[in-house]
Each structure stands twice: as structure tokens, then as C-alpha cells.
């Protein structure tokens, strides 16, 4: 049969616009919520995924990258003695407090890395050089976090828990899941800037948070991981992917953050679905005499359902394209404001499938109404 549904939509542009708005609302909400969630999840394991270490070693039962406990630095030598371990580098993360020019404080996370090492994630610098971190009191911050830290410029002197620091560079896109800014510093300086590492040092023994391990060529990574756990007491060794997933899983599932985002996305789907459903239903009711004629002429329910589905899917297709365009623009705006929104192709396709399901579901109410339509009623209109 001809594309009656599409013609109906084209003719009733106001209703089509309302239905498309419903789809756009749902698409934008779902895409943005899931995109933000993906962005946050990615940021939660950014420093793990970007590292070139085969294994990450921490204290036992660390739930997430951000909340690890310190252990004695001397365990590094035990690690180096495990067969299959080629290289070990220290890597520290510790919460701290950054003094703002206004006199207030901002929480931050000090990341201590070995500037001569090769296993930590490369910093995407937009100003300064990694070697500059070797200078006295040098720190690097992310340009997207400057506002939170009182807008410091290169060369500005700042204070981190009563210790002098100087900004020597900016990274781009290095945001933490907890929204506290990362402050990158050389290992020794990070020891005095971080709460945990500083306190531990004050007790006499130098403490570390993580060790990054490179597995020697010819050795199986999983075997080396098990050997570390067997030979070094009170530590847990993770593969890079395993630790990344553990961190993501913690934020997504154990904190309820993921469920919150997904609930908001679901709400968008429901509201959008109701708008589309009501609009299609109003169109169907208005055209009941025409559907009655088709039924009287012998059109099957399948053929009538096709007309309604065509209307719904036409709105869905337009709403999907418009909604994605809006989402991409919003995502770019959010990204420049420091909030990562990821819209991978898989999300684009998934939202398309969801939109098709949404519009098909929204059409069902109309189809049920048509099922009850008596073709004989056409003689009474």
C-alpha cells in the first residue's frame, strides 16, 4: 500500500512537530545522561587506562582508584625480586587541600608520578613540559579545573596544605570522577603535598599508594600477577583492565551514581513516549473514518497497523537525527566547560534502536483502538 502514514504526518505538520519534539526530548535526555555517565566512568579510570603498566599493585581489597591505602615503599624491592617483573615504578594518589586566593580552600587529588619513568599515563599537556615537574615546588593542573582552583596562571605560586607550590603547566581533559581537580607533581614533592603520604612520612617510614609493574618479555602476565600476590605480603596485584573495571564498577554500581543517571534517562524515555503516544493517538482518532473506510474495503489489521507504525517511525527517525545533533552540540559545549560527554557510535546506534522501540510502543495504543474499530461505523459518519 502507499505510504499513507508518512503522507498523514506531512499533512498534519503541527502534530508531527509535537510528536517529533517528544522524540527529541527523549533522545537528548537519554544521549546526554548516558554520554555523561560514559564520560564520568571513563574519567574514573583515566589514569589507569592511559598507563603503560601491565600490573597495578595496591593494598588488599582496594575498591577504587581514588580510595587506596598506603603501604611501605620498601615493598618495591620485594616486587622487583619476583620472577617476571621487569620494572617497578611508584605512583601515588592522595587527597589534599589547595588554598584559594580568596582565603578559602578547595579539595584536590595530588598525583605523584616518576617523571623519569615510562609506565604512568602520559599527560596531555597544553602548556609546559613534563620535565618542568622536576623543578622546585612544581605542579601541573588541568586547564578545565583552573576555575575551581582560583584561576592560577603559569608561574603563579600557590599553597597546598601549607606547602609552597608553583604552577608550571596545564593538561587538557584530565578530570577525576569525584570532580576534585588532579594536581600532578613529581613523586617526592607529591609526598609532602598529599594528606596520606605526608602523614605517613611524618611517622618515619616512606609510604606508597601504588606500584606500576612492567612484566618481562616471555612471561605470562597472569602468572606474574599471582606470583606477586604469593611472594609479597599484604598486597593485591591487578591487571590494568581488571583494575579499570573494578574502579568503574565501584562508581557505577556500588555508589548508585550509575543507577541515578540511568533512572533519569528512563524518565526521559517515558515522558517522550507518552508525548509521542498521545500525539499519534489524537491523529488516529481524528482519522478514524478514514481507517474505517480502509477496514471496510478489506484492509487487514496488519495493513492498518503499518500506517500507524509508519507515522510513529517517521517521527522517530526525524526526532532521532535532530536529537542527536542537539546532543552532540550540547556535549561539545559541556566538554569545553569541563564536563566530559562521550557519544560513541555504539550509543548512537543504541539510542536509534531505543527510539524505534519507543515509537513502536507509542503506536500500540492507536493500534489497539483501530482493532476495536467497527468498519460498519463508516456508514454512520
Amino acid at each position, binding site marked *: 500500500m*502507499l505510504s499513507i502514514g508518512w503522507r498523514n504526518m506531512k499533512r498534519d505538520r503541527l502534530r508531527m512537530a509535537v510528536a517529533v519534539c517528544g522524540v527529541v526530548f527523549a533522545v537528548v535526555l537519554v544521549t546526554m545522561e548516558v554520554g555523561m555517565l560514559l564520560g564520568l566512568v571513563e574519567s574514573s579510570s583515566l589514569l589507569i587506562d592511559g598507563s603503560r603498566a601491565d600490573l597495578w599493585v595496591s593494598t588488599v581489597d582496594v575498591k577504587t582508584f581514588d580510595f587506596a591505602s598506603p603501604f611501605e615503599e620498601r615493598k618495591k624491592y620485594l616486587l622487583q625480586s619476583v620472577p617476571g617483573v621487569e620494572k617497578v615504578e611508584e605512583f601515588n594518589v592522595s587527597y589534599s587541600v589547595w588554598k584559594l586566593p580568596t582565603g578559602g580552600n578547595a579539595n584536590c587529588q595530588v598525583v605523584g608520578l616518576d617523571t623519569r619513568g615510562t609506565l604512568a599515563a602520559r599527560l596531555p599537556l597544553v602548556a609546559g613540559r613534563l620535565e618542568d615537574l622536576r623543578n622546585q615546588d612544581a605542579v601541573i593542573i588541568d586547564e578545565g579545573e583552573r576555575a575551581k582552583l582560583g584561576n592560577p596562571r603559569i608561574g603563579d605560586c600557590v599553597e597546598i596544605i601549607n606547602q609552597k607550590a608553583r604552577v608550571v603547566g596545564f593538561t587538557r581533559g584530565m578530570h577525576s570522577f569525584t570532580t576534585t581537580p588532579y594536581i600532578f607533581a613529581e613523586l617526592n614533592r607529591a609526598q609532602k603535598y598529599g594528606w596520606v603520604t605526608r602523614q605517613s612520612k611524618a611517622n618515619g617510614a616512606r609510604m606508597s599508594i601504588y606500584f606500576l609493574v612492567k612484566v618481562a618479555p616471555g612471561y605470562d602476565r597472569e602468572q606474574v600477577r599471582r606470583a606477586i600476590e604469593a611472594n609479597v605480603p599484604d598486597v593485591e596485584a591487578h591487571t590494568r583492565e581488571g583494575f579499570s573495571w573494578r574502579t568503574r564498577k565501584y562508581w557505577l554500581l556500588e555508589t548508585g551514581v550509575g543507577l541515578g543517571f540511568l533512572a533519569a534517562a528512563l524518565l526521559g524515555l517515558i515522558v517522550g513516549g507518552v508525548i509521542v503516544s498521545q500525539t499519534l493517538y489524537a491523529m488516529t482518532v481524528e482519522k478514524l473514518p478514514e481507517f474505517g473506510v480502509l477496514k*471496510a474495503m478489506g484492509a487487514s489489521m496488519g495493513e492498518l497497523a503499518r500506517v500507524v507504525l509508519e507515522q510513529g517511525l517517521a517521527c522517530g527517525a526525524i526526532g532521532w537525527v535532530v536529537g542527536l545533533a542537539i546532543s552532540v552540540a550540547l556535549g561539545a559545549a559541556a566538554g569545553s566547560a569541563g564536563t566530559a560527554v562521550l557519544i560513541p557510535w555504539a550509543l548512537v546506534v543504541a539510542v536509534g534502536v531505543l527510539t524505534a522501540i519507543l515509537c513502536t510502543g507509542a503506536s500500540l495504543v492507536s493500534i489497539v483502538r483501530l482493532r476495536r474499530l467497527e468498519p460498519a461505523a463508516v*456508514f454512520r459518519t
Partner: protein
Amino acid sequence: MSEAMIELHRLGKRYESAAHSDGSWAVRGVTLTVFAGEVTVLMGPSGSGKTTLLTMIGGLLEPTEGFLSVCGVTLDDGSEPDRQRFRREKIGFVFQSCNLLQALTAEENVAVGLALRGEDPGQAQRLLEQVGLGAKGEALPEELSGGQRQRVAIARALAGSPPVLLADEPTAALDAEQGRLVMGLLRRRAKTCGTAVLVVTHDPRVRDLSDRVIEMEDGRLRRIVRRMRKPGLLPSRRLDGRATGSRKEVRHVSA
């Protein structure tokens, strides 16, 4: 003798009613035969059961009692898909308010009828030409006059050449000239293609273009008037109620 296309024997339709314990009979005891090539007009006051009878013949409503056969098909135990197929293959409908699909052009409206009957939608233009609207194929229903819309509806009903054409008040909203055109089309179809045409109407002007007039009252047939035309005589161009070139044979039907 022409082939019997519609055969009814003691046909009845009863609706459930709170006021009457045995329900309310819309049609009762109707016995009638309509032949191929015959134009039969069903007249009577409102509520006399004309439209109910038409919908039963069209397979849109199930009779409560009696026998109904259209083109040799009885739908006593027919499922809905059987009825759909029956309507597609055997019946062409023309409605009082045309009920064209407003979003489609005249040609597309006719093409829908063809597509439903499994015919080539490309024949739509030819059917429009048959009803004198060859130049209006691209027009939307709102751009057509009432008479033109009804002629498009007839073209749609003729799609696939159904052997039975059922028309409900096809001239009610039309002026005399347009009404004559529409009835002329239906009559020509009956005479040239052997289609059985059954028209429900209140319009007395339609009588002269029919072969038979059946009057109904309270759900029953009251009178059948057979109009016998002189051979070769064309229908009158006037639809003012005065018969021209024909004589009548009246038969009263006992209740």
C-alpha cells in the same frame, strides 16, 4: 435471465436492547434477490433498516438470522480474515461523505483501492478518466467539489472491478447535476460490466435511474417497484422526480 448476485432469505438483524427483552430488530424477514447488471434502489424513512441491510450484504455486520449469499459466497461462519477477503474481492463501497483519505491525491486514493485488491496501482489514472476526472489526478480531496469527490470515491470503489457495488446515500450532499452524473456512472457500470448495484437513498430523484425501487419500513420490505425501460431508451437527464420513458410494475410485499 441474469445471474443472481445477492440472495437474501428471511434475513434479520437484532440488536441487544435494555428496553426489549427479545432485543430490537433493525431488519427482519427480508427476502430479496439482486441480479447482475441491475441497479436497485433501497428507500425508506430513517431507521427503516436500509443501512443495516447494506452493511450485512457488504460483510460488515453479521446477520442474526436468515440466509445471505453474495456472488455465491455465504459468510455464516466466516472469520474476520474471510470477511476481509470477501470485501476486497466482491464488494465496492461508495459512502455518503466519500471518506477519501485527505492526505492523498485523487489518483492515490484510487491507487489505494487497487493496491488493496492486489491490482496495479498504475491503473488509477484510467479509472479516474472513466469517471471524467482524468485531469484531477494530482488534486487533493479538499481541492475538489463535492461531486468530484464522490466520483473519485466511485473510481476507488470500481478498482479491481468488484461484481457488487454498494452505495450509501451517494447523492445526498450533491446538487441535481452532480447527483445525475454520479448515478449515471453507477448505472453505466451496471449495464456495461454486469455489476449489481444496490443504492440506499432518501433522494427521490434517484428512482428514475434505477431498475427497481425497494421500499423499507420498520426493518421490513414494504413494496417493490420494478421499472421497465423501453429498449434503447437512455435515462432521463432530468432528476426532478418525473419518470421519463418508463413504466412501473408495483408489487406489495406482505409482512
